């Protein structure tokens, strides 16, 4: 699946998008996998309360399933308007 990062999450991880192959069933499991990879991931995800997630471009939460998901995106709380 594609994993996307925006705003300071993108900056901390150092890339906007990557392909990830995972058996994670939920967003939270995917986050745990990513954090275990490298320090920059661990740092970016260190405060989950400061993050928002969208699965297939719909806002959801960290308990959400990512089975069959094509795209998961992580970002800080939005500041539009």
């Amino acid at each position, binding site marked *: 699946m594609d994993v996307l990062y925006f705003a300071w999450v993108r900056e901390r991880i150092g890339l906007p998008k990557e392909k990830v192959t995972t058996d994670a069933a939920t967003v939270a499991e995917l986050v745990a996998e990513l954090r275990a990879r490298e320090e920059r991931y661990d740092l970016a995800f260190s405060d989950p309360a400061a993050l928002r997630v969208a699965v297939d*471009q719909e806002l959801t939460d960290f308990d959400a399933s990512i089975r069959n998901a094509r*795209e998961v995106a992580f970002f*800080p709380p939005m500041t*539009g308007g």
Partner: protein
Amino acid sequence: MRIIVQDAPFDFGQEAETFANGRHDMGAIVTFTGVVRDFRGGGLNAMEIEHYPGMTQKALEKIAEEARCRWSLGDVLVIHRYGQMTPGEKIMMVATAAPHRKDAFEAAEYLMDYLKSRAPFWKKEHSTGGEAGWVAAKDEDEDALTRW
């Protein structure tokens, strides 16, 4: 209904005029426009807005559709820019047309409240001194959603 996401500037006066014209059944038109505000006493060089291209249009359409379900509206317009802007430039606008003013006002405020915290835009401020920082979401913006 028109939902526009673009990096180019938009012509606020022209958009407002076009939106308000030729509707004989709508008595009330409300517009809101967001402008890049300089820091108190100057110091903001540029505002950069990042967005999530695949999701933005859909998220805005969903918010606008929800507003049309809740209020009696004749029309809705949302324009939101992304990219680099300088102080004084218009970031976005919403417009609502309704038979009655209460619906037009409430729907415009609803659109703004949701657009602030539920549409995938992120603002970064670049100061004249060369520093840059992401604008933090405000608790009051999240709290604003509880009234709807």
